[in-house]
């Protein structure tokens, strides 16, 4: 009984209908956290002693970098679930997670280089963290390219999942190897064990932004996956019913001005 939700999760239709109810809540929470975190971080957090106001980009840079990495593992795990249990839904999640992860990696690279200019005096540096993020970006691009290269969607999904899994072995190795190679980046300031080197007044807005980005990621992933479900299930009865329902309710609303379509 308790595991029923897990089995149902494998059904794209059940997932689509269930997540419908989550969307408004998730949107409200994400927007609130994003606004609170942004205003808190940009307007109320104190000015950094060494870096002045330029450090404030941390409130976008760090959460984006977190999610870029976490997103890779979400993609690889859903790929593994798809391969092992031969379910359809995880592949749809994986397919959706790849471009989102690539976009977040790109954002963290761009914000990092914008931050690097005033603090290190250079846009780009072959530093360990930056280089490993760049290679992560290449891994994302490779998986996306491989998924799209096959005529058969099934084969593309499975091939992408295998490549994502091979990449998970490689990510820690890349991370460590470039770390031993050459480094300039500041060490991690936020520690879960022991004392953080960042002051609480700066840390709390950052944590708010990290949670906001996690919610944002969940929201975007849901939206992408729902679109992917509709695309892949477009020949099934329930999707055509859904479309018919939507069309008829749209038509009904035309004469009634201001009527809600929901």
């Amino acid at each position, binding site marked *: 009984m308790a595991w029923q939700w897990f089995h149902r999760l494998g059904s794209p239709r059940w997932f689509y209908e269930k997540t419908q109810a989550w969307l408004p809540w998730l949107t409200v929470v994400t927007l609130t956290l994003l606004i609170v975190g942004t205003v808190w971080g940009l307007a109320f957090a104190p000015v950094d002693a060494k870096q002045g106001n330029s450090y404030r980009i941390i409130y976008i840079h760090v959460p984006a970098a977190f999610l870029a990495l976490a997103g890779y593992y979400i993609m690889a795990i859903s790929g593994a679930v798809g391969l092992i249990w031969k379910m359809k839904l995880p592949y749809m999640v994986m397919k959706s997670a790849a471009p989102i992860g690539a976009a977040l990696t790109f954002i963290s690279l761009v914000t990092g280089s914008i931050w690097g200019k005033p603090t290190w005096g250079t846009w780009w540096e072959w530093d360990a963290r930056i280089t490993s993020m760049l290679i992560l970006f*290449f891994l994302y691009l490779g998986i996306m*390219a*491989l998924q799209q290269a*096959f005529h058969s969607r099934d084969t593309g999904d499975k091939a992408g999942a295998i*490549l994502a899994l091979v990449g998970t072995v490689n990510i820690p190795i890349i991370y460590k*190897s470039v770390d031993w190679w050459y480094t300039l980046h500041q060490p991690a300031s936020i520690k879960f064990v022991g004392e953080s080197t960042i002051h609480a007044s700066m840390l709390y807005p950052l944590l708010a932004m990290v949670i906001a980005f996690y919610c944002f990621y969940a929201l975007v992933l849901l939206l992408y996956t729902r679109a992917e479900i509709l695309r892949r299930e477009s020949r099934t009865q329930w999707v055509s019913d859904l479309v018919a329902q939507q069309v008829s309710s749209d038509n009904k609303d035309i004469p009634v001005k201001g009527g809600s379509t929901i």
Partner: protein
Amino acid sequence: MTEATLQTGTFAVFWATLRRDLLLAVRHRAEMVNPLVFFLIAITLIPLGVSPESKTLAAIAPGLIWVMALLATLLSLDGLFRSDFEDGSLEQMLIGPQPLYFTVLAKVMVHWLVTGLPLTLMSPLLGVMLALPSGGYGPLCITLLLGTASMSLIGAVGAALTVALRKGGLLLSLIVMPLYVPVLIFGASAVHNAVLGSVINSQLAVLGAFLALAVVLAPLAAAGALRVSSDG
């Protein structure tokens, strides 16, 4: 198929595949030589494009030789499973009762024997061309010996994933190159450090560890990828 052939041992199949692929490679000598010629030409371009001064060349030689060896390996990967896929012998390997792991391992070993090993043997010559300081030759050969083997193994996963695609070559490079980064970093830095006179045992140990990890995991992933590719 009789009962006797069905029960052919795993190692017998391993040796048979090894022998067959080596024989095929020897009969197609021109294909075997191509990566080596690429290696030679690409290295020749460097003094022409960068600077012919031996001081500049000596400074960049370890990294350059490593990068070129990587590219030459990439170039030869596409053929790893391609001809077997096209003439249908790959399917016979897939449906055979012996574990695919050892078949893939044998094919990768042949790939290394006909590309990685000759590249390694040729590298001292290129070291001379690029004025590599004398301390670098031994480490260059040892790191390339370990590194090219890892690169053949990792590359096999990419080759298996793209074997069913008609124009898989470019995509293959795209997905395999990021996976080569650690091998490149440790290989090139070992040669660099050796030239500067420091001990490189730790880098060699790491390269050996990569190779061990790749021997265990890469043929598994490649076998899985071959099953996926041949489905579609």
